[in-house]
C-alpha cells in the first residue's frame, strides 16, 4: 500500500489512542493504522534511498541492505503508536538500520564484501573496473565493524559526533576514539597498498 507524500503532515503529530484489544504489535486497523501506514510509507519514500546506501556501505551486500531497511521501516510501523517522539523518527530508523546491519554481520559471520567480486580479478577485469576502483572503500571493508560504522556515519551520513553516538548507542567520546582509530587504520592500509 503506497501512501501519498501529501499526507505526511497529517501523521507526524502525536499518535492517536490505540483501540482496545489491539495487541498484535502493529498499529490498529482503521484510521490509526492507515495513518501509520501512510506516514511510514511517506517516510520510506523520503529516506529509503539514503538508508539503503548507508546499510550497503556497512554490509557490502545490496540485497541484505535492502532487507535491513525494509525491516527497519516495518519495525517503525509496528512501533508507530508507541513512539514517544515522532519528530525523531529518522533517528529511530537510523538506529534500527545500524542494529540490523550488526545482526546481519553477526549471523553471517563474514566481513562485508563487494558482491561477486572475483577471488582475484583478471587482467581484463582490472581494466574494466579500474576506473571505479575505490581503494579507501575497499580498505574500509576490512576494518572492524564498529570502526566502519563510525566512519560511514560520520563521513557518508555526515552526522555530527553526538548523532553518530546515538545511532551507534555509544558515548560521544567513544565515537571520537573509534573514528580516530578507524582513520588511522585506513591510512595505514592505504599506505601499505601503495
Amino acid at each position, binding site marked *: 500500500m503506497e501512501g501519498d507524500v501529501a499526507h505526511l503532515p497529517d501523521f507526524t503529530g502525536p499518535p492517536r489512542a490505540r483501540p482496545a484489544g489491539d495487541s498484535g504489535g502493529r498499529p490498529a486497523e482503521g484510521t490509526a493504522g492507515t495513518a501509520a501506514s501512510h506516514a511510514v510509507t511517506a517516510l520510506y519514500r523520503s529516506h*529509503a534511498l539514503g538508508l539503503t546506501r548507508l546499510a550497503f556501505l556497512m554490509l557490502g551486500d545490496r540485497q541484505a541492505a535492502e532487507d535491513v531497511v525494509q525491516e527497519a521501516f516495518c519495525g517503525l510501523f509496528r512501533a508507530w503508536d508507541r513512539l514517544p517522539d515522532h519528530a525523531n523518527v529518522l533517528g529511530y530508523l537510523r538506529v534500527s538500520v545500524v542494529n540490523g546491519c550488526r545482526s546481519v554481520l553477526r549471523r553471517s559471520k563474514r566481513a562485508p564484501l563487494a558482491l561477486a567480486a572475483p577471488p582475484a580479478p583478471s587482467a581484463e577485469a582490472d581494466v574494466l*573496473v579500474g576506473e571505479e576502483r575505490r581503494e579507501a572503500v575497499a580498505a574500509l571493508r576490512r576494518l572492524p565493524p564498529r570502526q566502519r560504522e563510525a566512519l560511514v556515519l560520520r563521513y557518508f551520513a555526515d552526522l555530527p559526533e553526538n548523532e553518530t553516538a546515538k545511532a551507534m548507542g555509544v558515548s560521544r567520546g567513544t565515537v571520537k576514539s573509534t573514528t580516530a582509530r578507524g582513520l588511522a587504520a585506513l591510512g595505514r592500509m592505504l599506505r601499505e597498498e601503495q
Partner: protein
Amino acid sequence: MTALEERLRGELRAESEIITPESIAPLRLPGDTEHMPGGPRRRSSRHWPDWAKPLAAAAAAAAVIAGTFAIAHALPGTGRQPWSPTRPYAGVPRYYAYTLQGDIYNYTRHGTQYGAGVTDRYLKIRATDSGKLIATVFPPKPYNDFEMISADATGTVFVLGAMRYWERYANTRPSVLARNQVTPMRFLLVRITGGRAQVFGLHLPVTVTPGQGPSMALSPDGTRLALAYGGRGRPAVVDVITLPYGRVRRWTSPRVPWAPLLSGRGAWTADGRTLVLQEENAPPVRTRSALDQYRPPTDTPVRLIDTVAQGSSLAAGKLLVLRAPAGESAPWRVVITPDGTKLIGGTSQAQFRPRNGIERGALSVYSARTGALLQRLAPWKWNNNDNRPAHGGGPKEQLAWSNPSGSQFIVLHPVDDLNILGSLTGGTFRTAGAPLPRQPAGYQELQNALRTGTQLAW
C-alpha cells in the same frame, strides 16, 4: 578535514551510488500483500519444438538449460586461487554444480496419490577431482526452482537464478499457475573459497521474469553476467551487468519474432569479449494440430556481440547463419569454443515427431568466422522402442565443458539408449578417462541428475 577524510567521503558517496533511486523496492508493511510476490505459479515453458526433443527431453520442460561450456585455462594474469590438478582433469574447473529434481508436495487422499515436482528443485556443488560434496543449495522461500545457473571459468563463482514454482494442490487453477510467469526471478551468488561455499543474495539492477524467457551466462572471470530475454513479438534485450557495481550495458533490437538465447558460459569466449547470442526462431508449438503441421527450421542465426565495441543495437553483432547438415534440424544450444574459433550445436534428424523408431543426431561444429559446417562429432542413435528398465526418456546431448580449442569435451551423450556422462576426445566418446577423473566419485549422481534435472554448470 584531512585529505584522507576527503577521499573517504568522496569514495563513499561514489560507492553508494550503486544503489540508485529506481532500484529501491516499494515498502512492504506487515499485512500488506499488494507488493508481495504472486501466488503459486507454473514454470515457464520454452516451447521446445518437437524436433528438439531428441537432444533434450528433459529440457523441454524447463525454461533454460544452463549447460555450461567452460574454458580450460584461467585468463592470463588472473592470479586465481592456486590449484594445480594433476591429470587427467587438468584444465577442468575446480568445482561443478548441477540441479536435482525434487518434490513440492506429495500426499494421498481417498486412495489416490497426488504430487508435483520440479526439475531443478535444488542444487549440489561438488569438487571435480574428488567428487566431494561442497554444498547443497536450496532457493530461498518462496522460490523453489533454480531456473538458470552459470559458473565462471574456475568453477569457484556460480550465479543461480531462482523462480517461484509452487503448486499447493492438485488441479491448481490455471490462473494461479499462470502467475509464475510474472514473478521476478531472484538471483543468488555462490562463491567457494577454501573449500567452503558462501551464498549471497544478488540483487540485480534488472528485473526479469520467467515469462520473458530469460537465459544467462556468467563471464569467464565471473565479473559480468549476461542476461538475454524478450523477443517473440517484443524487443529482444541483452544486458551485461558488471556484478560488483551493478552497472548495466544493454543491447536491444526492435520487436522480433525470435527469442534470444544464451547457452550458459558457453556463450562467452575465454577473453570475455565476445558473446554469442542464438536467435531461437522455432515458433512455440502449443497445440496438437500445430505440432502436426510443424516443420523445424533448418538454420540457426547467431550473433557474435563484441561487448567492448561501441553501440547498443543487437544488429551490430556479426550475424552467422548456421545451416543444418542435410536432413537434420537446425543446431540449437549453440556454444562457442573458448578460443572463439568454432561454434558447436546439437543437430538431429529432421524427421517429424520422431517419437517411435530410431533417432539420430550429432554435435555439429561450425566455423565462427564463416559459419560453414566443419565437422560432426559423436554421432548417436536412439531407439525409442527400448523398453528396458531405466531406459525411458529421450536422447540428450549436452556439452558440459570444452578445452580452449574444442578438441576435448565433457559431454552427456546418448549411448545404448541411455544418456551417459563421459569424455569426447578426437571424436571418440569414452565413459572414463581424461579429462574426467579415473574414479568418478559423484559422477554417477550427476549423470542421474542430468536425466531429470536440466541445469549444469562446469
